């Protein structure tokens, strides 16, 4: 029975490790620079992670059905390009702009679903291909240029459209945080409290058994990829609102952070499953690290080393747990 103790210790770290790490990091960063704990900075952190979190929740939904959506980053880029171009190029109102961006997401989600459900391409490869395609579509659509108010058009004139002032609010405090929290809570409720969420987890656990239990597996997979594309688009929209322009491949960098947050979230509180709250905690961890390290003057170009290491550690915990339980 001497074996027993380290096992429990491991379980403890598996469940509470992420949260403990966050607490330790807050303590360390505060000790090094008391400004870290100021409410301004904390809000700053929450704001900085909100786009990642929204996109990561989409990834989480795709992970729940044992899928993997790699196209979320470029879906966000495309959504930000569509929404800004609707305002600037076509002088459309807010509703049309949002609708167009979400429509784009639905098309992406359906295409992903066709490749995965009908053509049976492995999820990661199908969405990898889709990532390339959408990235190209977004670049082609914007002709490789940043879209912004008063930009110079191809014919030499200036773009006349303006961005809706209401739209500008999405990316500002407090709305950006409100949107993020709403997404997290709704997704968490959907996954853990409704039968649809339960079915998604069942499909993720054993697709064949799920089908033979009468669960319409394909329908739920389509739903998962639609949700993930729609959330990616929402992330892109909030991003566009925050910077008020649509830059080339603006959403691309969010992919890796979102994936990291979703995977770190697997182990939070011992869930062992993709879950929105865990994903949020994962994003908080990344956000705190990033913010604290910037404060300590770690150069931005070294940041990925830290983020990658945290992801590797979280994955190590999850997979070690899977093989040793």
């Amino acid at each position, binding site marked *: 029975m001497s074996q027993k103790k380290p096992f429990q210790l491991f379980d403890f770290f598996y469940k509470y490790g992420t949260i403990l790490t966050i607490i330790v990091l807050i303590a360390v960063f505060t000790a090094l620079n008391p400004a870290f704990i100021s409410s301004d900075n904390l809000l700053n952190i929450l704001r900085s992670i909100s786009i990642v979190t929204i996109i990561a929740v989409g990834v989480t939904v795709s992970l729940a059905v044992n899928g993997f959506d790699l196209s979320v980053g470029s879906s966000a880029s495309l959504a930000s390009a569509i929404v800004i171009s609707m305002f600037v190029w076509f002088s459309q109102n807010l509703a049309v702009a949002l609708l167009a961006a979400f429509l784009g997401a639905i098309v992406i989600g359906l295409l992903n679903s066709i490749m995965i459900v009908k053509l049976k391409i492995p999820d990661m490869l199908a969405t990898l291909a889709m990532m390339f395609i959408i990235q190209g579509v977004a670049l082609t659509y914007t002709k490789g240029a940043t879209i912004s108010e008063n930009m110079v058009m191809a014919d030499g004139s200036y773009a006349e459209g303006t961005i809706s002032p209401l739209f500008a609010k999405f990316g500002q405090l407090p709305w950006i945080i409100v949107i993020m929290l709403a997404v997290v809570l709704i997704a968490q409720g959907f996954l853990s409290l409704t*039968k649809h969420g339960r*079915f998604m987890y*069942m499909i993720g656990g*054993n697709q*064949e058994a799920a089908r*033979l*239990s*009468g669960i319409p597996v394909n329908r739920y997979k389509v739903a998962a990829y639609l949700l993930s594309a729609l959330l990616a688009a929402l992330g892109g929209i909030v991003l566009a609102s925050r910077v008020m322009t649509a830059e080339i491949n603006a959403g691309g960098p969010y992919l890796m952070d979102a994936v990291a947050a979703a995977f770190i979230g697997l182990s939070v509180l011992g869930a062992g499953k993709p879950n929105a709250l865990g994903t949020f905690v994962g994003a908080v961890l990344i956000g705190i690290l990033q913010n604290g390290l910037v404060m300590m003057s770690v150069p931005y170009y070294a940041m990925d080393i830290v983020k990658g290491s945290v992801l590797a550690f979280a994955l190590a915990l999850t997979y070690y747990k899977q093989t040793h339980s």
Partner: protein
Amino acid sequence: MKTVLDMKKISIAFPGVQALNGVDFRAETGRVHALIGANGAGKSTLMKILSGAYGHYEGNLLLNGEQVEIRQPADAKKHGIQMVYQEVDTALIPNLSVGENIMMDQLVNGADKQWIEWKRLWSEAEALLKKLNIPLSPKKPVSDLTLAEKQMVLIARAISNDCRFLILDEPTAPLSQTETDELFRVVRDLKQQHVSIIFISHRLPELFAICDDITVMRNGELVGKKQIAETTQNDVIEMMLGRKMDEQFPARKHQKGDVLLRVSGLTARDVHGVDLTVHAGEVVGLTGLVGAGKSEINKALFGEDQHTSGTVEINGQPVSFRSPHDAVKKGLVLVPEERRREGVFVSESVLANLTVTTLGALAKRSFISFRKEKETAAAMIERLDVRTPSAQTKVRYLSGGNQQKIAIGKWLLAEADVYLFDEPTKGVDVGAKREIFDLIAELAARGKGVLYTSSEMPEIFGMTDRMYVVYDGRIAAEKETAHTTEEEVMYYSTGGN
């Protein structure tokens, strides 16, 4: 020269379980030794110790009275002990050839040589196949082989080393009758070549056909050791159960209500124009050899096959199933053959497994009522007598019999009209089998229609009112169970008409 292997006072514990408790085991070369016990009795654990998979046991291993130390697989191989595991695919590399797979140990251990001597490899592999009388080309890729052939490749690999003790873990479970006969021939040949074969199995008739000695285990302890010639199947079952065997099958009142399921001209992949009916309150057998197309008929009925034609009526209503989802909605459900892969969610809790089919009824506007779910699951656990520490326990940790009860239980909750059971007792120990038979009998008594698929003749005769014999994807014969014999069914199963 005879070699005697003795395992003395073997004990081993895993976190929370004392898996073996002072077990003695003896095997000698030139004899076939049966090791039998209910699921969880510890037979696989004992053999894994012998093959070096578990190093942390207590007790002694002796070869011809001399103590040997076996703590890892390499030690076991050094002493000529080889094991062929039940999951053959885990031990083979599918994209390599038969020859490379057979000679794998030599390839790996000859790592000091930088070049593979292909000529020698092919000829040695061929010689081994010849020694076993297996008509397989060494150059064929393993991915093209049948399960039985893969098993032969593993046996050939085992004897490519110096092999004095060959452990076969439930080797016949996935095999058809002809394949089993072929395996037995190989086993007899090896016996002639002074190899000791240790045979783990649930199937008593087989053990009595091939083995010389039998060791029975129960709950991690040795309960009996006999020569096959001096014991009977009933004795062995009593030793396994630790009590007198109850009647194997429940008594059923034969009743026949309206037609619940009527199938005509059902055609799908490997299914050719099948007609059958199931009445309310009836248990109808679907039997035939392994590979006859019984599972395919079940899957086609359940909407699994996309290219199904023919007509299916449930309660007189014509239905067409494009997916299991449709079938379930129309009141037809399937307990599939491959339990772990198709029947249960091993990484989910007992609770989630039991309620998966009725979640809609347990939810209000899609939100699950966790209280109702818990009550429903608790009632079902009680009714099925599922042996589980709690409703939250993951199904992975339950025994095969209890997993099967859960695979059946989820459909009991769903209250369907027609129940299809595909080999429901596969890999289930004797005690749990009876409980499963009881459940099925109870369904019929409540006026459900049951289509009971099995290639185990005693089960078909013990459980059904009427049966269809399948051969080559067709119904070869329909018989009243009371008016036929095993010989007659076997005649139709093997293509007679």
